[in-house]
């Protein structure tokens, strides 16, 4: 092995540090009771938070339901689609 003398810069540029988010979108079909149930049972949200986010989806058209690593957000999206909700992955601030 060669001796390395340079320090390897592992930190990404500041712009890449923005976390990823899972966003749930409103649709005219899904029942409010069902959306709230999904937030509680899948994400383990307490009832009042689930209700608040469900209402935000309903009234504002969308809500951020999770934030973190990209792969994790993609898994959440897949789970939401399993339940019949529509969710997408985005960068924070998008």
């Amino acid at each position, binding site marked *: 092995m060669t001796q390395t003398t340079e320090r390897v810069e592992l930190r990404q540029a500041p712009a890449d540090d923005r976390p990823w988010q899972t966003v749930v979108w409103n*649709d005219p079909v899904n029942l409010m*009771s069902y959306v709230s149930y999904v937030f509680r049972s899948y994400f383990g949200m307490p009832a009042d938070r689930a209700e608040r986010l469900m209402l935000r989806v309903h009234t504002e058209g969308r809500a951020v339901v999770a934030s973190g690593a990209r792969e994790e957000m993609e898994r959440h999206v897949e789970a939401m689609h399993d339940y019949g909700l529509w969710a997408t992955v*985005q960068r924070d601030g998008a």
Partner: protein
Amino acid sequence: MRAFTRRRHGYLTRLDAAEATLLRSLAGQLGGLLEPLTAPGAAGSGPGGMGGLSEPGGLSGPGGIDGLDGLVFGGSEAPPEDSALARLLPDAYRDDVEASREWRRMTERGLASRKAANARVVLATAVSGDVLLGEEEAQAWLRTLTDLRLVVADRLGILDEDGPPDGDGPSTADEQSRALAEVYDWLGFAQESLVRAVDR
């Protein structure tokens, strides 16, 4: 049907013969709609899959990279052309076509397979008379009822929460729309009551 109630051994409802037949028919149709997307090298674009076996050149074939890729993932990359299917299997990224395609390639087949499996549970358990669902069966029903409502809504052209658009006059198309609208409402009742029973 009666609203679902939670009992000691599961979730109980009662379907009459017409309701059971309807629900089984819908579940069967949903399975049929999903089925092409559950096979390796399924519909749509994608480099892998069994289609690669017939491509000249390249590494296609069981021992080749393309062939293996198709067997493992085999998902398409483009959204389904059918608008109802596209709603069941939507994009994961709104503003990044490449990321959406990659994610779809990795996940679509699994999603379609799980939805098809849920529909088969409903097909097997939607009987006339008393219906008692265990926990897993109830979860399959919850997801299938939702998927069915999404498909029916698409066919009805439901764009907002006011529900199905009103038909004009007694044409055949409107008869069908009215029947579909009744199905949509019935599915909504079933879904709401099951959510309430499960979500105590």
